[in-house]
């Protein structure tokens, strides 16, 4: 069995981008050619991978800025006297159906569909207009000519095609495009809506967990996603750590789950914070559609869709924090929502942690590694050195002690290229892109 992880560590090409604002979401498109980031200021920056060049064998397709646009602006709700943040919570790409690329971006309340088009040719030789577009004096026109398309500098245009507003009372935490490529869903704390991509004036409510009396509220929706292949299936996670798989064919309102995935609480680990740390912050289907990956505060778990009683695999992300839960509760870090990601072949999973660390777990070899995304330790073509957190006992050189961890440096958003060993890591307003140079194919 080829241990790709070792190769990944030995040779890595990294580059980073400094963005204007704190990055709030990162997403590759379906081919991996484009990478979109959303930030706290409502901006979206799209990076494009340069085609590999034979002339520069070391340039294995770098990512460069392709387009930047303002997706959302701060809004003011006069009725409730509150400001709606422009921060982009999620971006999801639509599968490409023609020359243009489309993506959905959302803030707390409004989802927008954007179309990204390229223009690299322009018509020249009009009969009635001159070069600047001004109308010609008709008396000077003596012959008829056919305008020709001439190349021009590439221009990327991003236009808003749909605005899906007024669908949510609470904060939107997820959007997910259906495999039918016609519908998508958006989830807030208490409800999930189904939209048609072409219809903006109405949506269909498919999940509603709002209790009749708000005083009975004990659980909220934290994340949701459509199944990658079955357009009738979707999953949503809750703040109590449960996952509900729903089938839209069963009933119009999917309040009754088809499957409930829940791991019973471990009595030996029970504390006041048990519920908070079990709250699922992200859920992702595997590319195969057979498994689900969930992230809660201390672990990542792999669930088999055929087994509801417990996850098939559990990986400790930073168990050394278990004894520090009290202070993490005090400073609100315990409420941080980390995302998780699968690699293209579903053999490795990745998630972020504190101190700008991120972790990878190889499901086959059961090996794991801690890496750091920082400018100090990452230079172009540098080796990514594994890091270690020591909890007392024998301390090696370059180990970091738990008490020296910087909890303000958190990697909440990570993304993995759909087919290659390329990852995007967001650390505050730094975007790191790490590429495995030696092995760019999945194993």
């Amino acid at each position, binding site marked *: 069995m080829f241990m790709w992880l070792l190769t990944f560590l030995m040779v890595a090409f990294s580059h980073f981008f400094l963005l204007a604002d704190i990055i709030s979401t990162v997403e590759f498109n379906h081919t991996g050619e484009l990478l979109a980031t959303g930030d706290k200021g409502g901006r979206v920056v799209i990076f494009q991978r340069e085609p590999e060049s034979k002339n520069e064998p070391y340039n294995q397709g770098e990512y460069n800025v392709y387009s930047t646009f303002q997706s959302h602006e701060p809004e*003011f709700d006069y009725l409730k*006297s509150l400001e709606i943040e422009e*921060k982009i919570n999620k971006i999801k790409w639509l599968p490409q159906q023609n020359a243009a690329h489309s993506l959905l971006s959302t803030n707390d309340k409004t989802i927008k569909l954007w179309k990204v088009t390229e223009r690299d040719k322009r018509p020249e030789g009009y009969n009635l207009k001159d070069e600047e577009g001004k109308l010609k004096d008709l008396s000077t026109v003596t012959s008829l000519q056919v305008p020709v398309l001439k190349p021009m500098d590439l221009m990327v245009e991003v236009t808003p095609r749909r605005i899906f507003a007024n669908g949510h*009372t609470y904060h939107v935490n997820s959007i997910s495009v259906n495999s039918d490529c016609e519908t998508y869903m958006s989830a807030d704390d208490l409800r999930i809506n189904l939209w048609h991509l072409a219809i903006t004036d109405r949506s269909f409510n498919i999940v509603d967990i709002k209790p009749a009396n708000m005083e009975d509220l004990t659980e909220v929706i934290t994340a949701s996603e459509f199944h990658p292949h079955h357009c009738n299936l979707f999953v949503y996670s809750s703040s109590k750590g449960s996952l509900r798989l729903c089938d839209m064919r069963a009933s119009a309102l999917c309040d009754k789950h088809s499957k409930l995935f829940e791991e019973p609480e471990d009595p030996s680990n029970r504390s006041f914070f048990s519920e908070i740390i079990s709250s699922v912050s992200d859920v992702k289907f595997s590319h195969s559609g057979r498994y689900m990956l969930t992230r809660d505060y201390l672990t990542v778990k792999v669930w088999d869709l055929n087994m509801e009683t417990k996850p098939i695999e559990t990986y400790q992300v930073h168990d050394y924090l278990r004894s520090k839960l009290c202070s993490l509760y005090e400073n609100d870090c315990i409420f*941080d*929502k980390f995302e998780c990601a699968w690699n293209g072949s579903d053999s490795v999973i990745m998630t972020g942690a504190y101190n700008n660390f991120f972790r990878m777990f190889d499901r086959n070899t059961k090996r794991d590694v801690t890496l750091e995304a920082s400018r100090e330790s990452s230079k172009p073509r540098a080796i990514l050195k594994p890091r270690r957190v020591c909890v007392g006992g024998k301390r090696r050189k370059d180990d970091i002690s738990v008490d020296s961890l910087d909890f*303000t440096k958190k990697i909440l958003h990570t993304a993995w290229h759909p087919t290659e060993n390329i990852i995007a890591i967001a650390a505050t307003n730094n975007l790191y892109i790490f590429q495995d140079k030696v092995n760019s194919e999945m194993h």
Partner: protein
Amino acid sequence: MLGKGVKRPRGEMEGGETEPRDPSAAPATSLFNISMVKLHQSLRRVEPNLRHLVLVANTLRRMQEQMQREAGGPAAPDSPEAPPAGDDLLLSTMDTSISTILEDLGQVEALSPARPEEEQPLAGASGARQEPARTSAPCLGPLELLSSASYLLEDGLEDIFEDIDTSMYDCDLWSPTSLSGFKAFSGAEDSDSKALAGAEDRLDMSDLDYLMDVLVGAPPRSPAPPPPAPPPRAHLPGTRPVPPLAPSPEPSPPSRTQCPRSPL
């Protein structure tokens, strides 16, 4: 104008560090105190993070269960999680507080344009209400404005007008006797201004009217017998006109916690 005074929700989604801002809170020595502070802080926000709120509330409930179990059992040694002795009243009111707070979320949520039809079931929820409009039969449109107006002006008053320097208005005009004229003119707002119990430095309803008139440059009013309906008031650009408020039959309960302005 409203844009300046409105608090932006702090970046709590990303786990920003929260310092206890409430000056009246005791030093956070126990989890219980920390949790109560968090709960109140969460509700001070313009739009509370529902997940955070629910998780903190559930944690508090867990602590309550634990304490009740401990109270039932033999005398347990002081544990860091147990609240200080004498907090039994706090314990019993805690659950009520959490329930009432979450109730209010449901109430205010009815104001949202996305779900106007839910006003009906929520209007019947228990508990004393600060919004006087709730007592009348709910119907859309004017009622929404009424509720939102009263909601806006009650707890929102302090925050919205915080940064306005009202020192130039601090003169004899605001003494009770001299205000009688304004109060008489305000007419229907009187009862509502009585409902606004609180610190003396809070702007009164009629004070608010006067302030707005001055700001929009309306001609000075003279004390006159209350007209059948107050004249239309100029309103700030972007806001809806505030119709006259119905008289409030219920006084605001004094034990309510500060600013549960949970607009959901």
